[in-house]
């Protein structure tokens, strides 16, 4: 027969081991990376003269490494350059997420914050809780996309051709129209 205190300790350890008392998932982290492209979806070929989007690697807000070309390899990618301190960015980010949600997994979205915004960005991601990854991007990434100031939204075709960029953000209807033109079901 076990001593009651021993049983209590074992029970407490089991509960803690099972993760009771809190979910470890970080909004904007690895668990928000997109799953496989849905079956039955194909994509419009991008214009032949469209420029190749600059590839980059960054870390998500939970430290997970991410490479842009892996996200745009098999589907369109919407990039949202944003910042925790930017008063208009959260709504632009939400708008882009709504437009992407309409494509039911056929389009990926990656938010990007400046390098000095990493810690506040975790709160920003938690507050928005968009279900899409958020990465901390170096100065070079911002310069490569001519993102002089957040917000800026960019659309990359499958394979990496840069299709559009919207400094200051984009209206939901405009982004929906662009995505509808890209995705074929």
């Amino acid at each position: 027969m076990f001593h009651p205190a021993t049983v209590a300790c074992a029970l407490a350890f089991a509960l803690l081991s099972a993760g009771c008392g809190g979910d470890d998932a970080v909004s904007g982290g690895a668990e928000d990376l997109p799953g496989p492209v849905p079956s039955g979806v194909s994509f419009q070929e991008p214009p032949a003269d469209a420029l190749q989007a600059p590839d980059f690697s960054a870390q998500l807000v939970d430290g997970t490494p991410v490479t842009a070309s892996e996200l745009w390899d098999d589907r369109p990618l919407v990039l949202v350059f944003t910042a925790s301190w930017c008063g208009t960015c959260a709504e632009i980010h939400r708008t882009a997420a709504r437009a992407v949600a309409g494509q039911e997994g056929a389009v990926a979205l990656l938010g990007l914050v400046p390098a000095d915004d990493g810690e506040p960005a975790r709160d920003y991601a938690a507050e928005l809780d968009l279900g899409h990854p958020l990465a901390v991007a170096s100065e070079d990434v911002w310069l490569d996309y001519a993102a002089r100031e957040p917000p800026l939204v960019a659309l990359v075709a499958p394979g990496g051709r840069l299709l559009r960029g919207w400094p200051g953000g984009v209206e939901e209807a405009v982004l929906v129209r662009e995505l509808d033109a890209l995705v074929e079901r």
Partner: protein
Amino acid sequence: MRRFVPALLAAAGLAGCGGSGDGLDVRITLVVPDENVRVEGTECAGARPFQYVHAEASYALEDEDGETLAEGELPAGRAVNADPSIDWGVERIPTFCVLELELDDVPRRPGYALRLERGSPLPFGASLVEGGDPVRLTVR
């Protein structure tokens, strides 16, 4: 003796010791000459290479000896026409980002400097403050 200390401190406070009420109210119009294309009047932050000028970024007001007189966080800016002499004819135009700072009861000194997170401190004389109008400083 210990019980008299709070009373002494309270009396000193009521008497205005420590400079409260004796300082200057400093208004600063901080201009970021980034010439970024925006809709006039929209909220903005400094565009590269002035990206360190944004809401919630810290600043300090110093005197000529480098002593910190006041500290705070920058507010968001507003986009203003970079060249009002030009009728651009479009909605999105070259703009500067302008931030308005209000610092109350700043200790009187002959000269001040606004220090941002990066860049050179921006000096200005007390005479500009005493004029009553906002002091116009341009980030460089």
